[in-house]
Each structure stands twice: as C-alpha cells, then as structure tokens.
C-alpha cells in the first residue's frame, strides 16, 4: 500500500499560510485531504477559518509542534489513521500539516520518519514555506526562524505579490536563492485561482545548478547561513558516501540545515537524497535523470560551517568515495 504523502506548510506569522490553504482547499484537487492545524494560543482562529473541513481538521493543542507537543501530532495523525482503517472516514489522498509561524518544520519531518507506526503509513512529501512579498525581507532580517524555514523548504511560495512592487519581489527572489539554492520558488497572490498547484504534482524536483567556472569559496564565512553545490566527476560509492555523510551529520548535524541532491551511484537512474539536520530521508531511486544531466549533484545548506571545509573533506575522502568533488556554486545568505 503506498504511503500517504504529508505536506508540511510552514511560513512566518502573517505570511499567508492559512489564506493560501483556505483558497487551495476550495479546488477539487485537494478535496480529499486531511488538514492538521497546529494552533498557537488558545483562540483557534485558524481552526475557524478551516472549519469547512471540520471533520478532518484536527487541532493540535498547546502551540509549537516542534519539541514539546509533537506527541500531539502523532496522536492527531494516529487518530486519522485509525478512522481511515476502521472505515469511519474514507482514505485521504494527502495530509497537510500547517505549522505555527514560529515552528521549525524539521521536528515534524523527524516525527513522521521515525515514529514506529507513522513511518509505515505516511511519508513527508514536501515542505512548503510561504514568504510574504512585502514583509518577507523584514522577517528574514529579524527572525532566525524565518531563515531556518527558508533553508529547509522544498518549495518557497512568495505570497501577496499583488501588493508588492516588482523591485521588492526581485530582491526577495535573490535573497531566497542565496539562502536555499535547492528550493524551487513559486509566487501567489490574493486572487490566485490555482493555489492547489503547490500541493499536488512532483515535489522533489531538484533545481539543478548550472556549472560555474570557478566557485568563489572565499566569499562565504562561517557565521552566516551559506550553501555549496557540489558535483562529482564519476559515480559515487554509496557505502562510502553514507559513511562520510553519517559521520558528518553525527558531528555537525545541527550546523547542516539541509542536504539535498541527486546521486549517481552507477545505476540506471539517480538516487534522490534529502536530509534536514540529523535526519536523512530513506534514499529513493528515480527512474531517469532530469534533462539528461547525469552526475551527482548535492547542495549543502549550513551554518557555522564553511563551504570550503565541506569541499576539503570530500576531497580528502575522494579515494574512499571513488569520485572527485568540485564546487559548482557557493552562496552566502544576504
């Protein structure tokens, strides 16, 4: 039985998560979805907004999903699973978890991947993060949570583009690309008739970085959020790469915000690799390479680690890995 995809919808306070979801839910594509709202504070405003899907809306009590109450998320999804299996409710096509504006999405990922029951029935499909076109810059400047959310996103949705100037959107796009070069970016506005497109379709399309002649490694500093895209010249040895990456994540997991990429292990198609901090999603085999590019391509987004360190380490391990790494692109969050 295929696992039910779980979509994590995150984004800073007031960035338009609920508006996007409310509108998207009116469309037929999302009719058969279960919504779990992680409520912050006692008055469940968001809950009322989604009351239309009342019987499927499960309200998480007590605020932040991430640490103290992720058991609530487990309980909420287990209750849903129980209802589906006992026939009280028909099987849903997807579960959408809307987090609070301050939540870190990674613990939700962790919860679903590691829970002894949930891991067999659900799979995190994508992390969507909304950023407000007008106030997004301010949130990124002022709030660490907003940068963290941006860094872990699979897709970033810029909202309220109808009330922002073209220049504001340009700047925000540039900034997002500097924080998370692996994420795809979409835009939406108040009258967007098709918000559901963000919730369906292929989520894990990795944006492939175009080859740059010489990546400027000196630009990046350890204190900032920065990223490096690495390509390997030959197929990698999976065991060796797993050894290196598990070692890195054990030692530096909190500093590695995101690892994402496609690996060439010598097989027919690539293996997609997807990790958030200490957690790696079980690698998946894809049937074919996108757009004929056939080379391992990995993006690391990190903090307190310099891109040069990652590259040096991979270079030192090249004899074990069986392939030589080279940097395609290095970015420092602006």
């Amino acid at each position, binding site marked *: 039985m295929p696992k039910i995809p779980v979509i994590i919808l995150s984004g800073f306070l007031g960035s338009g998560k609920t508006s996007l979801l409310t509108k998207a839910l009116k469309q037929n594509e999302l009719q058969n979805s279960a919504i779990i709202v992680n409520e912050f504070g006692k008055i469940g405003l968001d809950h009322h907004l989604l009351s239309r899907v009342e019987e499927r809306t499960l309200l998480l009590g007590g605020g932040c999903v991430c640490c103290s109450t992720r058991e609530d998320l487990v309980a909420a999804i287990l209750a849903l699973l129980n209802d589906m299996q006992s026939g009280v409710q028909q099987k849903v096509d997807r579960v959408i978890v809307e987090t609070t504006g301050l939540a870190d999405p990674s613990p939700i990922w962790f919860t679903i991947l590691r829970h*002894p029951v949930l891991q067999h029935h659900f799979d995190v499909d994508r992390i969507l993060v909304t950023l407000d076109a007008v106030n997004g810059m301010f949130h990124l400047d002022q709030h660490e949570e907003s940068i963290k959310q941006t860094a872990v996103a699979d897709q970033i949705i810029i909202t309220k583009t109808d009330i922002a100037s073209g220049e504001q959107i340009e700047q925000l796009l540039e900034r997002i690309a500097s924080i998370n070069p692996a994420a795809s970016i979409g835009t939406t506005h108040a009258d967007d008739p098709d918000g559901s497109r963000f919730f369906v379709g292929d989520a894990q399309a990795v944006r492939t970085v175009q080859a740059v002649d010489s990546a400027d490694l000196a630009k990046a500093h350890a204190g900032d959020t920065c990223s490096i895209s690495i390509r390997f010249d030959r197929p990698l040895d999976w*065991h060796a790469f*797993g050894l290196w990456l598990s070692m*890195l994540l054990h030692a530096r997991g909190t500093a590695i915000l995101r690892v994402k990429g496609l690996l060439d292990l010598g097989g027919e198609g690539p293996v997609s690799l997807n990790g958030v901090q200490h957690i790696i999603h079980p690698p998946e085999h894809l049937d074919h390479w996108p757009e004929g590019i056939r080379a391992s391509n990995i993006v690391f987004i990190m903090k307190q680690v310099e891109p040069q360190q990652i590259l*040096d*380490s991979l270079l*030192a391990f090249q*004899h074990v890995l069986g392939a030589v790494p080279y940097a395609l692109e290095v970015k420092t969050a602006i």
Partner: protein
Amino acid sequence: MCVLCGGFVLQEHWTEKSSDDGGAIMTVGGDSGRNRQRQRLLRTNMANRILGYYGLKMEDWNGSKYILRDSKGSSEIVYDLGSLWPAVEKMIRKAADPLDPQLIERMQENPRI
C-alpha cells in the same frame, strides 16, 4: 527481529538502503545472502580506513552486527552506521568529525590509510 539474538530492529538506518537491493532484506543463503555479506565486508573495510585514524577497528559479527574495538580492549556492539558514530564518540571522547583539519591532512598525505 534478528533471529540470532532476538534483538528488535525498529528502524532501518538510511545507509542500509543500498543502491540496488532496495533495502536490507535479510535472507539466508543464496546469492542475495552472499551479496549482502559482501556489502557488509566492503563497508567494514571502508569504515576501518577512517576508524584507523582514531585507533579503532570495526569487525563484522555474524553478519548481523558489528563490533567496534579500541586498542585498549574495550568493545562496543554497533548495529549500523547510525549507532557507529555515537559509539566512536564514546570511545574517543569526542565526535569523529570529517571536517577535522588533522583528519583531512592525514587522509591527504596517505590516501590508503
């Protein structure tokens, strides 16, 4: 569940999902069994190239677990790479860091350690 020792395997570590076998399905005998054993030996050898730097050695135990030893005779049972690094940290009293400049230097000087 491991039939040899009765230990429960709750979580398959992501590194156990190898490139072509679609997961570590344990079967006894036959080609898949041999292939699995070969993969384990390859992984053990590879890990030992890195662990040697810390004076540690890992060996396969009955095809189901690994044993990590240091030169003073302490040993630790390791299930997979997920529990290897915490065990290494316990033995050498610090996290084995692949970004450690000294380790990098050592590997550059002697690629075949």
